[in-house]
């Protein structure tokens, strides 16, 4: 078990966002966490990466209890998150943003070049724009950048927060095929998504989150057909 979350509760001030979430991610899997907005997906992500403290419950990673570990130290353990939306450094160039991904691990020149090539291989757009200031790029390009940057950390576990958000349909399917490809290279992926269709179709397993609780879980393909999914999103019973 690479990641194991037990009875996780998270508060914002006095507002409880997670009411006891338990899930696990095994080595080499793609696991999707889906649900409508405000269901607690991003909060779960932030708790795993250490940006949000857990009020209760436990998070184990690679056999170690990391519940109380500082966020930057979790990165060093091998958890890398591509944050949602415009979680890039807008004032840095693409290349600088990618270099930030290697901050914790300080690769040598050669290694860095290798990693860059790998990311550029996945996202040729980034190579074209590598000297561009990231804040001036389109939403889709920024999304690619956050993923590419997370990969630069050579994570054991890649956390993807809404990778399809704000993207045109063409780009969305492209992103998901890239996720699949990354996973093929041996990276375990936990992806949080609103776009149920796409994420479920690539995920090995999936959890459906509703108002801070996991309501359903199962194999990705199975859930695609599950009416509970449609209910969670469109409110059709």
């Amino acid at each position, binding site marked *: 078990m690479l990641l194991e979350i037990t009875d996780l509760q998270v508060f914002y001030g006095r507002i409880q966002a997670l009411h006891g979430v338990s899930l696990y991610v095994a080595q080499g899997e793609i696991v999707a966490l889906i649900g409508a907005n405000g269901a607690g997906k991003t909060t779960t992500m932030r708790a795993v*990466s*250490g*940006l949000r403290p857990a009020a209760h419950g436990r998070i184990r990673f690679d056999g170690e209890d990391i519940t109380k570990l*500082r*966020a*930057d*130290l979790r*990165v*060093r353990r091998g958890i*890398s*998150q591509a*944050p949602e939306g415009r*979680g*890039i*450094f*807008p*004032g*840095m160039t693409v290349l*600088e943003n990618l*270099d*930030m*991904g290697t*901050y*914790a*691990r*300080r690769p040598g020149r050669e290694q860095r070049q290798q990693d860059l090539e790998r990311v550029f291989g996945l996202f040729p757009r980034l190579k074209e724009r590598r000297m561009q*200031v990231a*804040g001036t790029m389109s939403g889709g390009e920024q999304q690619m950048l956050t993923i590419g*940057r997370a990969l630069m*950390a050579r994570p054991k576990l890649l956390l993807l927060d809404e990778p399809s958000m704000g993207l045109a349909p063409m780009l969305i399917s492209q992103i998901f095929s890239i996720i699949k490809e990354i996973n093929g290279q041996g990276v375990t992926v936990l992806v949080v998504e609103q776009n149920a269709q796409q994420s479920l179709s690539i995920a090995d397993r999936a959890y459906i989150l509703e108002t801070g609780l996991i309501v359903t879980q199962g194999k990705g393909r199975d859930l695609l057909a599950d009416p509970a999914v449609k209910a969670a999103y469109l409110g059709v019973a």
Partner: protein
Amino acid sequence: MKFLIDNFWTLTSTGLTQGAIYALIALGYTLVYGVLQLINFAHSEVFMVGSFFAMWTLNALASHEGHAGALLIIGLLVLAGIAAMIGSGITALFVEFIAYRPLRRRNAPRLVFLISAIGASIAISEAFGIFISRNILPVPQLVQPKVVLTLFGSQIYNMQVIIVAASIVMMVGLDQFIRRTRLGRGVRAVAQDQDTAALMGVNKDRVIALTFLLGGLMAGGAALLYTQQFGLTRFNVGFLLGIKAFTAAVLGGIGNLRGALLGGLVLGLAENYGSALVGSQWRDVVAFVLLIVILMFRPTGILGESLGKARA
């Protein structure tokens, strides 16, 4: 007015010299602001302590009337500069540890940070006044004043050239450090987005300490240049200079390194031209009125804010 025109270039060169020192000190305000969005009111004392370290070093090593060789002078200046930077750097870290870190841990309101920084400023300055001296203390000036070139009929002195050149070298060095190195990127990352920075494995506390340290090093450099220009220091020397440097930082756009340079130079020039026009006694009034006028039209300073967004 005639005086201003007749002496335009002299006023310009002295204004730039003064402005360069403002700019170096302003960097400290701007760095800390860029990362924490807080005014480090105690930065004036960071500068003051550096000037004392420079003085002690030079008093110990240099003779007041020495006409030593150029190499020796450069060596002494470098030593004094290092001492000043150590003094200022330690003070900056000290301020961070004593007056900022405990409050950050407690998530204190912004106003409280300001009060504790003001407290640190008063306490440090007064401690020097009580335990060392309240008098003006002379500092050996190593460089004999010499006219190095005459520009449009105005004489430019060697020290002026040294100050402007040294300031620019230090600022370029800092700029490059912030832009090109891993640690510098860490500083910019925290300035732009603390959470995302943490996701990259950046240790926020360490970066904040580094930011204070960098500001301290620049202030230490400024302190050495200041003592060499004026040959003195005093326990409260930082007060007015600090206010001016802070004004310069805001003028240029606080949180913006190049803004600090621009703000410092604009302020230095404006003070000198203004003094020539309306009399030296109105110098500070000129500085503050300029600040208010500029902020009225550009509410975030000449170059705008942000350590990150303006690309350092």
